């Protein structure tokens, strides 16, 4: 197990991401932040806070549960059982610029599911993807617009993002 980002680096990375997003997003774009359950949700909240400060107005933040949109629900080999949880987005998405947030971009399948889920909720002006870590292994043609950290990871290795709210500690590790 190797730590690739510690708590301070995660915080710095999130601030930098907020800065990048702010540089390319004006208030007129109506930015909103939506995190994919469950780590993306926490990162989204932190990003929304930084971005609100930079843009000088509150940026709405919501949570998306993608379980019903997964492409492996009917796969008999599923060793894990997905628990359907709630989507909590208390604002309309029509004509907004959605910054979709996830912790790790890997195969791209979660993001594909999230895109399908989002367009069932409304018609955003644009959807941009922000991730804390990206690694090789894409199975879908999906790329991030804002990347916090590019991890060099061999196939078979795993990137794990731990956050205080869910795991008691901020760190990104490879194992």
């Amino acid at each position, binding site marked *: 197990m190797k730590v690739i980002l510690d708590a301070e680096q995660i915080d710095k990375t999130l601030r930098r991401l907020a800065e990048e997003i702010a540089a390319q997003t004006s208030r007129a774009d109506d930015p909103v932040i939506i995190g994919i359950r469950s780590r993306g949700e926490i990162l989204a909240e932190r990003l929304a806070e930084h971005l609100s400060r930079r843009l000088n107005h509150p940026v709405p933040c919501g949570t998306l549960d993608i379980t019903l*949109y997964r492409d492996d629900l009917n796969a008999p080999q599923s*060793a*894990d059982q997905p628990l359907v949880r709630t*989507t909590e987005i208390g604002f309309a998405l029509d004509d907004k610029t959605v910054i979709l947030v996830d912790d790790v971009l890997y195969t791209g399948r979660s993001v594909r599911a999230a895109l399908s889920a989002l367009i*069932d909720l409304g018609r955003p002006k644009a959807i941009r993807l922000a991730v804390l870590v990206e690694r090789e292994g894409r199975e879908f043609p999906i790329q991030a617009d804002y990347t916090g950290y590019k991890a060099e990871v061999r196939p*078979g290795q*795993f990137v794990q993002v731990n956050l205080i709210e869910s795991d008691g500690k901020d760190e990104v590790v490879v194992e």
Partner: protein
Amino acid sequence: MSRILNIVERHTHHSSRRQHSMTMAIMRKGKQFRWQRKHLIGLRDLTAEEIHYILDTAQGFEQISTRSVKKAPPLRGKVVVNLFFEDSTRTRTSFALAASRLSADVVEFTMKNSSVSKGETLLDTARNLESMGVDIVVIRHNAAGAPKLLSRNINACVVNAGDGYCEHPTQALLDVYTIRQMKGSLEGLKIAIVGDISHSRVARSDMWAMTKLGAEVTLVGPPTLMPADVGRLPVNTSYSLDEVIEKVDVINMLRIQFERLGGNPFPSIREYSRYFGLTVERMQRAKPDIVVMHPGPINRGVEMESEVADGTNSVILRQVANGLAVRMAVLFLVNQAAAETPA
């Protein structure tokens, strides 16, 4: 262990899942709950944990009905048949809507326009439907045990939408879901189920679900409408609504099913409502935050006065909305269990 859980959660949606089979094996030995039933026949067999799991899942389905696209894809390409040997409007509609909101195709099969009237047996009918590629059979039948019989003889998932005087599990699930929503938990609540208990599968399923979740249930009605086996059930009984009205947190008023009543279980409708109707006067003696429920359709003025049915304590329409979310959850879960079980 918590770290392992994190990894698993992190990678639940990755194609590399198989490489993680070791971790998964460890997980499975742990306490992680798994829904494993491909049929929902009754609540009598379910554990409290299973009931809570259905209710938790239903929460995730609630918002589908409120957004602009009222549809999600988990049952895409699946076929659900509504196999109804008894009249039903709202349960059938609720199941049909629940299935279509999950993107399944829905086939309606009712007694009147089917070959059951030509003498086809239940199993023949079901096997025929199965040959057409039906994945989930939602069945209502006047014979208790019909859904169970069906589940033993076909590969499709079977969901009981009411069998005889035995069970109506999804109605009870939506009832406890609604109570949990209003009161936070059923633990320690006092609940009265009032009316024609003996002809009510709703009362039976309610009783199982409510007591399993920790509520204290009292069945209330005239002795002629109490089931013969009431002494063996985990409930209290009372023949007087006035005796219990002040004590209960939740009251579920059953419909007098005129079509099922044989003989003369009570002298007149007026007399019934005088003793067992939920009137404005009785409501004044009830706890101010009492939750008033009814499985519908209401005989206004019989089981309850209109002012009560439409009053602030009534959650009757909320029950209907919650029924959709609960049925979506049930259809989703039985299909998940079927997908995970190799045929």
